[in-house]
C-alpha cells in the first residue's frame, strides 16, 4: 500500500494474507471463502514447468492467514487449510497483458469463527453500480510493498474510483512487455497519478472496499489486480459486480 496508514485492529477484519506463489491478499466472504485475484493462484509469466500444477496441488500448498494486523502475530494464529480453489475460466495466465477474469475463490477446509478481527466483507448489490462512479472513495488494504519494503503490518489507503476514460488515456503509450495492456469492462481503475495513494505488489487479491452510506456496510467493489508501477499512476481492479453470478454459483447458499 502506497501512501497509506497502519490499519487499526479490527478495521479491515476481512483482510486475508495468502501465500501461494508469493505474498498476496484476499478478502473473507461468509465464514469459509476467500475472494482473491486469479493471478495469485496462477501467476502470469510462469515458465512452462511451473504451469502444469493443478488446482488441487496449489490448494495443498496454499497458506491462508486471517485475524491480525501484525504479520508476525498473524502467522502465530496459524494457517487456515484450503479445501478447494476456483479460478475464473476467463483468466488466462499466459496472457501477460490482459488481466480480464482476474478473480478466484478459495474455499477453506474449516469455517472460521467470526469476531472483531475476523469478519467477512459484503458483496455489492447487483443492481447498484453507483460504487463505480468516478470519485467514489474506496479503501484498499494489504500487506504489500511500500517503498520497496514488504509491510509487517496491515496498511490501508483511501483510493477514489477514477474515470475510465482518463485511465485509458493514461495507459496510452504504456507497455507491458512491449505490448499494450488491456483495460476491459470487467475492470475499473482507481487512484491518481498525483495523489500518491496506490496498491502495490503483495496487495493483489485484496479487496477495494467502499462503505455503503445507507447500510453503513463495507462492500468489496474491486479486487487489487494490476498496475504499471506503484504510486505514480492508476491502479486497476477487477470489477466484482460483473462476477457476482460466478461467485454465487460457486459459493451457493453461503
Amino acid at each position: 500500500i502506497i501512501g497509506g496508514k497502519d490499519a487499526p485492529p479490527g478495521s479491515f477484519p476481512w483482510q486475508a494474507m495468502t501465500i501461494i506463489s508469493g505474498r498476496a491478499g484476499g478478502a473473507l466472504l461468509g465464514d469459509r471463502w476467500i475472494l482473491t485475484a486469479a493471478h495469485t493462484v496462477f501467476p502470469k509469466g510462469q515458465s512452462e514447468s511451473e504451469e502444469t500444477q493443478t488446482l488441487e496441488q496449489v490448494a495443498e500448498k496454499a497458506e491462508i492467514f486471517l485475524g491480525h494486523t501484525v504479520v508476525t502475530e498473524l502467522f502465530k494464529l496459524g494457517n487456515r487449510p484450503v479445501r478447494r480453489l476456483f479460478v475464473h475460466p476467463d483468466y488466462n495466465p499466459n496472457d501477460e497483458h490482459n488481466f480480464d477474469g482476474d478473480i478466484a475463490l478459495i474455499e477453506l477446509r474449516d469455517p472460521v469463527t467470526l469476531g472483531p478481527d475476523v469478519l467477512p466483507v459484503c458483496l455489492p448489490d447487483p443492481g447498484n453500480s453507483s460504487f463505480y462512479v468516478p470519485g467514489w472513495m474506496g479503501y484498499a488494504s494489504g500487506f504489500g510493498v511500500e517503498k520497496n519494503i514488504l509491510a509487517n503490518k496491515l496498511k490501508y489507503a483511501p483510493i477514489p474510483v477514477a474515470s475510465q476514460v482518463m485511465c485509458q488515456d493514461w495507459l496510452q503509450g504504456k507497455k507491458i512487455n512491449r505490448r499494450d495492456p488491456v483495460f476491459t469492462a470487467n475492470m475499473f481503475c482507481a487512484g491518481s497519478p498525483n495523489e500518491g495513494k496506490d496498491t502495490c505488489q503483495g496487495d493483489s487479491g485484496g479487496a477495494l472496499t467502499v462503505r455503503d452510506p445507507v447500510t453503513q456496510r463495507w462492500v468489496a467493489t474491486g479486487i487489487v489486480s494490476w498496475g504499471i508501477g506503484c504510486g505514480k499512476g492508476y491502479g486497476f481492479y477487477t470489477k466484482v459486480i460483473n462476477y457476482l453470478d460466478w461467485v454465487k454459483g460457486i459459493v451457493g447458499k453461503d
Partner: protein
Amino acid sequence: SMPTSKKLYGEVKSPNYPKPYPDNNITTWDISVPKGFRVKLNFWQFDLEPSEACQYDYVKITADKQDLGRYCGQADSITGNHPRGKEFLSTGNHMQLLFHSDFSNEENGVVVFYKGFLAYYQAIDLDECVKGNDIEDGPRCQHFCHNYVGGYFCSCQPGYRLQSDLHTCRVDCSNELFTEPSGYLSSPGYPQSYPAELQCNYSIRVEKGMTITLKFLEPFEIDDHPQVRCPYDQLKIQAGQKTIGEFCGTVPPRNIETNSSSVDILFLTDESGLSRGWKIWYSTERIRCPQPVPNDDSTIIKAPQPIYRYQDYFIVTCKTGYNLMEADEKLASFTSVCQDDGTWHRPMPRCEIVNCDTPRILKNGDFDYVSQKKNNNYQSVVRYRCNEPYYHLVTNTGSDTYTCSPQGSWKDQNGEEEIPACLPVCGLPDSPILEIQR
C-alpha cells in the same frame, strides 16, 4: 307224596290217569315254583265220585296255609263240588294237592269207574310290590319297589341311598356336587326335620373366574344353644381355602359373596333334634377385579366402567405430552384384563412427561429458556440467538422459538424441527477506520 321240582309249569294227575283211580288211595303233591312266582292251577279233567261234602273221594287244595277247597264229583253231577274252570292261585310259590279215594266206588250196587283228574299248573309272576302280597322273607322296600318277572328290587328317594339289605334307605348327602350356574341345595327332607347323625357334604364347583353367592331362605332352623355356639348341629361353609363360618340357629345368615368358584358346605347333625333344616339358593357371576385407579393426574382410563369383572379389560392412555410407561419401557398402548382370580393381568402403568432432551446446539449461537420451567420437558420453550454482531439468525419459517412437542422433539411455531442458522454478518467491523484529519 310227590314233591314237584321248581319248574315254571307242570302237570298233576290222579294215579293211573286216564285209567280209573284206585281205591283207598291218598296221594299228595307239593307244587313249588321259583321264588318270585305264584302257582296257578287249572283242572283240565276232573272226574271223581260225587258225594255230599266230598266225604268219599276228593281233591283238597291248600296254599300258604290256607284251604282253597275240597273238590269231587263230575261236571254234571248234582252232588259234589266240581272245580269246573276255576283257577287256583297261591300267594306264595307253593301249593299242595291231596287226592283221597275211599274203599269203593259203587252206586246202587254197581261199580262205577271214575277217571280221576288232570291238572296243569304254571308259575306266574308274583308282584311283590303290591300291598297284600306277602313276602316270605325280608321287609318291603322302604321307599320305592320295582317289580319284574320273577322278582323285584327297591330304590330310594333322591338324597337317599339303598342300604346293603336292599330294602332300607338312608340319607345320602356325603358327596353332593353342584356344577350348574345356579341352583338350590338344602338339608335332607327340608322343610321337614332333617335326620340325625348326618355328615352331609355339598360341593359347588363352577368355572374359574366365577364367584358364588349364597342366599339363605326361610325357614332356617338348625339346633342351637343360647350360651354355646352351635354345639349340636353345624352348618360349615368354606370357600376355596378360606373358612366363611359356622352357622346354626333360626336366623338365616346374610347373603354371602364368597369370591370363589369353589364352595363346600358341611352339615353335621347329632343323634337327635327336630329342626327343619335349611335351604340355600346359590348363584354365580363373573368375579370382580379391583377398580383401576390411575397413578397420576396424567393417566386416562378409557370409558371407565363402574364395575370390572372377569374377562373385562381397561385401556389406559396419557394426556398429551406424556408417555405411557411400564417400568422403564415406553408403551405404545396399554390394556389390562381381569383374570379368573380377580386380579389384573398387568398393573396400572404410569404417565411420564415427555422430555425432548437438550435442544440442538446452534453453531455460533445459543438458546435461552423462555418458559418458566427451565427443563426440557413437554411445553418447555427455548429461543435461539446468534453471537451478535458477527452472526445473525436466519430462520426457516420466521420462528426463532421452539417448544418441546408431545412427540418428544423441539418444534417451532410452524411445527418444523429444523433449527435456524447463524450466518455471518458482513461489512460491519467493530472498529472501522475513522478519519479525523481533513
